[in-house]
Each structure stands twice: as structure tokens, then as C-alpha cells.
């Protein structure tokens, strides 16, 4: 029989994490962990830390420069939150294509991030929006750019005794436009074959001031596109060469063949999506 602890307050949870002789499996919505536990029972954790009752990890608060989203906030709550829909529409879109309604009613943003699948549905958007993570420890909290969180295949920057407590997302820059598209195996309940989120800021002359990208399912972790972002910086739209963009994409991603798709498809579609993100002048889409 395994241990199941359900603390009521964050400090209590952090104490437990710090003191634990063996690591706890942290569970919030359970939509990933309960599947794992059922399909691979020999790897069932001995001790569970249930953080679904921690109020400090719930809810969304608008701040001066953006929004703070508690790590254990459900995707459903995020998807329908008026401020998210108004100012971070790509996040509302990615939450809405994660699984399907019964999954979104339970799954949490923090869970999606910490499960660290390379195909994580909300990761590209968080990367594109430049999210920051608030990581709590019983000695205090630290902040980490989300771009530094994924260190390797399913390996995150969370240290022993640490808990992701919130995600902070700044307001997108004034003259920026977002683009989000998930290419899945079908229209709902689908794992992404390729996913992209982009936030591109242009000045009044059509020169790109900043371009942030996030992609899923094209590398061992969700990833940004540093070469492409660098290439686009300071460039006018009319001076962007498709060849150069494609070259940058090839440098920045490492797609593989797996049960869902091929490396060739992922590479080609990733390139096309990046080009579409750059040239498209419309709001975010949640496709496929």
C-alpha cells in the first residue's frame, strides 16, 4: 500500500518534499500519472504527494505586467478565463486542444509542463510568450525562464525538494501578433505531430523587433528556434528569404520518426509552419 499525502498548504508540501527520504511522485490533475500507473504498475510510485488541495497553486491573477497562473490550475479554467482569452489567446487555444473536455477539466498547466513530454501541448505557447516559472522550495522561491526548464528528454530543471508553484506570463509586446497551430493525428484527443507557437513583434516599417518561437514534437524537448529568431531580428518582412528560414529551422530542431509521424514530415511541416507564422497577419489558429 503506497503513501498518499495531501497537504493543505504549500509550506507543508515543501517541508515534506525537503524531508523525504525517497522522492515523492507529485500529482495534481493525474491525467498523465494515472495512465502511467495503470499501464506500468511495476513502476507505481511508493509515495504520492497530492498537491491538488493547495490553494496557493490555484487560480489566475492579473498583475501589473502580466498574469500569474497557479501551477495546479486546470486547463479548462485557463481556456475560459476572460483575461487569458483577451491577452494570451494562444494559451486559450493550446489549452483547448489538449486532449478533449474531460481531460481539460482535470489536467493542469503545471502538470503539462512538469510531465515534460516533447509533445506537451502548452509548452510551445509558453515558450513563445516568454513565460517564467516560479519554483518553490522550503527555503524560498526562485524564478526561471521557461526556456531553461527542459534540459533533456523528460528531464527538467526541478531539483530535489522543489515544486513548480506558478507560471508567470508577461503581456505580449504592443505591436506583436501571435500564431499557434497544432498538427495532430486527428482533431481532438490527439498527440501533436508538430506544434508551433510564435510571437512576432514588428515596428511600423515592417521590421521585426522580436520573434519568439516555441515548438513541440520536433526535438527531445519542447524548444525555441534560436537561429530563426536571430535571423529575423531587425529584418524587414520583404527581406526574409525562405531558404534562410528553412536553414535556420533545420539547425534548431531534431525531428525523429516515431509511431505517429516521420522525421521528413516533421521537418518539412515545421519549416512551412514557421514561414506561415512569419507571413501570416491573422490571429492565432487552433487547427487540426
Amino acid at each position: 500500500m503506497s503513501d498518499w499525502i495531501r497537504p493543505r498548504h504549500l509550506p507543508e508540501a515543501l517541508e515534506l518534499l525537503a524531508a523525504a527520504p525517497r522522492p515523492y511522485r507529485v500529482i495534481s490533475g493525474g491525467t498523465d500519472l494515472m495512465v502511467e500507473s495503470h499501464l506500468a504498475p511495476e513502476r507505481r510510485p511508493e509515495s504520492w504527494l497530492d498537491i491538488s488541495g493547495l490553494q496557493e497553486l490555484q487560480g489566475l491573477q492579473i498583475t501589473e505586467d502580466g498574469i500569474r497562473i497557479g501551477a495546479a490550475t486546470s486547463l479548462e479554467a485557463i481556456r475560459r478565463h476572460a483575461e487569458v482569452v483577451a491577452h494570451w489567446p494562444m494559451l486559450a487555444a493550446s489549452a483547448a486542444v489538449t486532449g478533449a473536455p474531460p481531460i481539460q477539466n482535470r489536467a493542469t498547466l503545471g502538470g503539462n509542463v512538469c510531465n515534460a513530454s516533447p509533445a506537451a501541448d502548452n509548452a510551445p505557447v509558453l515558450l513563445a510568450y516568454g513565460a517564467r516559472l516560479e519554483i518553490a522550495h522550503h527555503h524560498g522561491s526562485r524564478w526561471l525562464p521557461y526556456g531553461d526548464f527542459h534540459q533533456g528528454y523528460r528531464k527538467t530543471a526541478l531539483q530535489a525538494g522543489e515544486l513548480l508553484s506558478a507560471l508567470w506570463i508577461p503581456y505580449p509586446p504592443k505591436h506583436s501578433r501571435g500564431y499557434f497551430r497544432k498538427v495532430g493525428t486527428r482533431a481532438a484527443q490527439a498527440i501533436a505531430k508538430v506544434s508551433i507557437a510564435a510571437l512576432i513583434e514588428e515596428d511600423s516599417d515592417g521590421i521585426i523587433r522580436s520573434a519568439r518561437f516555441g515548438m513541440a514534437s520536433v526535438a527531445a524537448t519542447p524548444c525555441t528556434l534560436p537561429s530563426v529568431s536571430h535571423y529575423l531580428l531587425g529584418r524587414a518582412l520583404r527581406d526574409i528569404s525562405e531558404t534562410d528560414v528553412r536553414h535556420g529551422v533545420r539547425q534548431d530542431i531534431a525531428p525523429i520518426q516515431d509511431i505517429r509521424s516521420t522525421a521528413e514530415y516533421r521537418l518539412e511541416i515545421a519549416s512551412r509552419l514557421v514561414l506561415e507564422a512569419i507571413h501570416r497577419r491573422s490571429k492565432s489558429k487552433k487547427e487540426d
Partner: protein
Amino acid sequence: MTTMRINGRAFQSSSAPNTRLLDVLRNECDLKGAKEACGEGECGACAVLVNGKLVNSCLVPLGQMEQAEITTVEGLPEDSALARAFVHCGATQCGICTPGMMLAATALLAEHANPTLEEIRWGLSGNLCRCTGYGRIYAAIAQAAGGVC
């Protein structure tokens, strides 16, 4: 010990907290309406309402159900517009997805009393049906909402 309310009645389970709600319902409450069809939250055949929200009970741990209000298909009104529409419109064939679909439809109608086809398709997108091709199910929901089958 976990105390919940299932279909309006108090219920206590002493099973381990990581026990799936699906197993508690089927094995301890003798409520067989929720079905195990995939074991991984893909098909919705195990769907129930927890605090009014549609969830896959195969993914819900008992340890999070303290004071929860759970509704299974057995807890829905026996003779409702929805139930009649499902039967009349041919929305149930083999019936294995029907309990989950009834609950998905209930959750949908609670939020959208007069759902568009788009909203219906979205609301059911987590419930797989292999028999109907979904058409008769959309029709049943539309009828229950006051339209025509």
C-alpha cells in the same frame, strides 16, 4: 477513509487513495454504468461528473475525492428529454459508449442550453463511438435541447 457523495448519497471507501474512481464505482458501489474500455483516458466510456464537470473516472484517484459530488449515469433522471431523445433518435446502438455520452451531453446542456452543432461536436470530442458515426447522437442532443431529431 474517503467520504464522497455518489448520485446524492453519501459513500465511504477505505481503498487506497491511488485507487481509480472507476474501480471504486464498479467494484464497491456496484455501479456498472461507467465502463473500462481503454484504461488510459482516451475513450470516455468511463466518464462521470465530478462536481458537475465531465471527467474520465479511470484517471481520477480516490484520494482527491474527499467531499466530491459524483454523478454517474445511474444518477441521471430515468425519464428525461435527453434519455428519450437518445432512444428515439437512434443515438444508442451497442450502448457501451452511451453512459459516457449521456453524461457528456448532460454536462454540455448544463453549459449550453441550446448548443450549436459545433458546440455539440466539441462537447463530445472526448467520447469515442464506433457504432453510430456520431450523427444520431448529435441529433438526440439537438432534440433534447428543444430542436427536432
